[in-house]
């Protein structure tokens, strides 16, 4: 069994706290890290704005646009129901797109940087 605490950079016993190891500043200054951060933020920030606005629009319309929401689309199915179902669709879609985006754009970079950490820090500690 490997204890989770033994393989950290600084190694200040059982406290979960920054290690003050210089490797982190070194990794942060690499072009790979700048690219990783940019790619992560390029998806996450706009997507968060989109789904929050889309959700709040739905809540506000459900409360204050009664007539529009009550328009029938097909049979007994009205706009409110379609709008509600679309919230499910958009949630599934964003979750799926995010997974796919991160798998191809972020994970290889993160893996490379984490590997560099392991090579430099964990080999010294061992």
């Amino acid at each position, binding site marked *: 069994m490997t204890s989770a605490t033994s393989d950290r950079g600084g190694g200040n016993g059982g406290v979960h706290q920054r290690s003050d190891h210089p490797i982190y500043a070194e990794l942060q200054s690499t072009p790979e890290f700048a690219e*990783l951060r940019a790619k992560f933020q390029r998806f996450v920030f706009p997507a*968060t704005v989109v789904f929050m606005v889309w959700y709040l629009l739905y809540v506000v319309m459900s*409360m204050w646009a009664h007539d529009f929401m009550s328009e029938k689309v097909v049979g007994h199915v009205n706009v409110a129901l379609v709008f509600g179902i679309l919230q499910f669709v958009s949630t599934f879609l964003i979750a799926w797109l995010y997974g796919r985006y*991160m798998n191809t754009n972020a994970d290889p970079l*993160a893996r490379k940087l984490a590997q560099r950490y392991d090579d430099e820090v964990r080999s010294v500690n061992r």
Partner: protein
Amino acid sequence: MSSETLSTILFLVIVAVTIGITYWAGRQTKSAADYYAGGRQFSGIQNGLAISGDYMSAASFLGISGAIALSGYDGFLYSIGFLVAWLVALLLVAELLRNSGRYTMADQLAYRMRQRPVRTAAATSTVVVSIFYLLAQMVGAGALVTLLLGIEGDWAIRFTIIVVGLLMIFYVVVGGMKGTTWVQIVKAVLLMTGTILITVLVLAKFHFNISDLLGAAADNTGKGEAFLQPGLKYGVSTTSQIDFLSLGLALVLGTAGLPHILIRFYTVPTSRDARTSVNWAIGLIGAFYLMTLVLGFGAAALLNTGADSKVATSGGNLASPLLAEEVGGGPGSNGGAILLAFIAAVAFATILAVVAGLTLTSASSVAHDIYANVVKKGTATEHDEVRVARIAAFFIGGVAIVLSIFAQDLNIAFLVALAFAVAASGNLPALVLNLFWKRFNTRGATWAIYGGLIVCVGLVFFSPTVSGPTGVFWTSVDFSWFPLANPGIVSIPAGFLFGILGTLTSREPEAEAAYTELEVRSLTGAGSEKAVVH
């Protein structure tokens, strides 16, 4: 055989199976990482199921379908907030937390801040949120189980609360995170199976034509098309509309700040598995809420939901079980009895899985944050820490049983919404500002957490929920000057504002410097906690 007898047998089967799992999990639990995080050995799919099992409480399983059966479309509004909330968890929290934390919510903040103040604040909020949620679940459980088993009286309710409480303590003390996770996985599988079965049977009655189902619901309730439109419940006044907007904000922002959800991200080996698990959870929870739409409108179409009906007098909680009986062949039939008993058993498993998760969360925070880091300043051994966590679980469980018995006649369902509001107003601002704002520091984190918590609880205390004609605690006096039942619309911006003000009025160069480490670690996983290898 009556459905009550059958239910009792199924309840006992669930109790036996979960006790067996817990005993097995307890034997595998050796280190602190095993006890707090299940050794971080769960796969993305397993954790996705466990997250669903942890999240979909009896309130959402029976409550939302019941709310749809009674209030039509407005019942459905809830479920959307509960689902969309998972995008906040997926995009902003899950992976970064997995990489930068260890066992509790506080770990992620304490990583770059002063240990004792930040851990005390985060542990306070963790315990308060979890206990609110737990009390609502346990009081509900007492009423629900007695209703499902067809037994009556105060003593039956008390007995149920005690049995549920003792089982919960056993799962957490003996099985730790491993046992609790497996109980949640079993529950999620049962819940999905039961819900799919009833949904298909309901849809079959309407030849899989949704429009016909909706039409029948509108007709049968006598409310017509208004039943399918928003407004029946929340459209009464401007206050009720703003109140729902306020609730909607707390739902969508609260999930990613609920401590019992956050610690589930530590149970997988990597941040990629954390992402996979949230994606599975979104799929399962979304599918589930779509099916509750069919269950709710199905109950409205096929059952009597009038003012004196069992559905209405149980506050909607019996809508799903009675619908199961109806589509199984109706009251008195074997099929009906079997399905009713099965759904009752699913509800029972649901209660157990959720209360166990909440107790584990509180106990972990008391042992890891308060005992090991605030009291012992990091010198406690793993063995000591786990021992304290077990004692804390026993104590918290005991307190929850006693409080639930005292509260059994009060309608404290509002505590669930309050837990979401506190999570959204205190925990989420602290977590998000910590992850994305370099300048953020100890005072900012503690102000956000205490500020969010106090504003939420304070506003609810002065709301119509607590005092006045609709008050749960005082009906003869009225000090409800805050008109909304849900504080989110005020308390969430307040929480963020406290976090920002606290930060800007203090300087903490160490916390700013350590942002480099937090940022690199949370995005790359460099130096993050590894899975236990036995």
